[in-house]
């Protein structure tokens, strides 16, 4: 079981959380303007990297709030957490 650091509550066991999948996939402002290819990419295509992955977590059995996290999918180690809406932090420079 992972030890997940809630951006608001701190370290908690994984069973308190729901993983919400890849982060930073914005719903298109005008879906009807998209062609089928762009719409399917929004709905179905994912980065699925072996390495650093930006993903959404919901502290569903805790504070109930959503936040984003960077996690290494090869080691499962969490590298950073940050509020929804913030840009993905650059791990190398430390700039948020």
């Amino acid at each position, binding site marked *: 079981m992972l030890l997940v650091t809630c951006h608001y509550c701190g370290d908690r066991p994984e069973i308190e959380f729901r*993983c919400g999948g*890849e982060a930073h996939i914005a719903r298109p402002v005008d879906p009807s303007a998209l062609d089928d290819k762009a719409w399917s990419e929004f*709905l*179905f295509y994912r980065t*699925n990297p*072996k390495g650093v992955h930006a993903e959404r977590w919901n502290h569903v059995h805790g504070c109930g709030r959503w936040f984003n996290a960077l*996690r290494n*999918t090869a080691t*499962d180690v969490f590298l950073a957490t940050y509020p929804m809406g913030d840009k993905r932090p650059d791990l190398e420079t430390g700039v948020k």
Partner: protein
Amino acid sequence: MRHFSFHSLIAESINAHQGWKRQWRAPEPKPAYDAVIVGGGGHGLATAYYMAKEHGMRNIAVLEKGWIGGGNTGRNTTIIRSNYLYDESAAIYEHAVKLWEGLSQELNYNVMFSQRGVLMLAHNLHDVQSFKRHVYANRLNGIDNEWLTPEQAKAFCPPLNTSPDIRYPVMGAALQRRGGVARHDAVAWGYARGADAMGVDIIQNCEVTGIIRGPNGAVSGVETTRGDIRTPRVGVVAAGNTSVVMERAGLRMPLESFPLQALVSEPVKPVFPCVLMSNAVHAYISQSDKGELVIGAGTDQYVSYSQQGGLHITTHTIDAICELFPQFSRLRMLRNWGGVVDVTPDRSPIIGKTSIPGLYVNCGWGTGGFKATPGSGHVFAHTVAKGEPHPINAPFTLDRFRTGRLIDEAAAAAVAH
């Protein structure tokens, strides 16, 4: 290739078993092949086998970054069945089951295919309705599947607790008698031996690090940890690592890779006659020929390539097993492990062409790829050799996510996969 037979066994017994040779070579990669298969699991090796056997392509290679059968082929719970709801799925899984039925003879290699029956339990009214629908749909497709009452299920699988007092009582079950299990390692080894005998190079410890493309955009080769290899056709059969390989060709995929866990108990005398699955409480169990109970758990909730998952996932499955089989609560579990499964949005595989000429992909088998191994390899061999899909895998395109013609087994299952 030396033919395995009663005669060869007797001859070697007299010879103190000194004459057995390696079952496949360990060749150096050649500078060029007619086709390269990326991934030496069951599906990749089966693909190479059928390309050589049915399409006459002998100058081909299987590149495996680790050792053959060391990924999901050696990590699954070996369940084989074809009782899928939709026509497209039924066709491909039944194609596989029919190949399984003759596979040991075909390969001259005992894959220990045992059609002991797969029993799927219903625990609520929705399960009952859903499974009956599956039974009827399967029969229309010529696939055996029958509905059992709890008493009939108990008769077929005597260890099962059918008491009405348990938390999720058994309300009935669907039984596919032609379903069963096979020896997973033997499948990889049998296909490797057969392919090698026809001239296919099986190259282990050779990771593909790049896909080379020519001036016209088509595939012209692969970069590997053992040097570049020229080839006009590349078939990617990399299971959980498909997104990683395809990213090297600049393609994003509709896939996510999750850990899927399994575990085995200490070996005991024969106690369990069939394969039993319960999707509602999430447990599946069978007994291996060594005597271990083989138990499958669910996927973890997050993307991971670590080949391990959370203990709470396996605990949840053990809870369900102990409820259905109270007598197993005193068994000790010997090992648990994880594999990385590539899951598509509709829980059906992708087998076909990509937007890059010469690049083919067979992926997205998710949590249930082992059962399809022969069928998957057979139709993918056709796809790579002919450049066009076999009628059976024609619906399983990558393009279905754009057109909307999904094969939505995820919705059909009535439970979370």
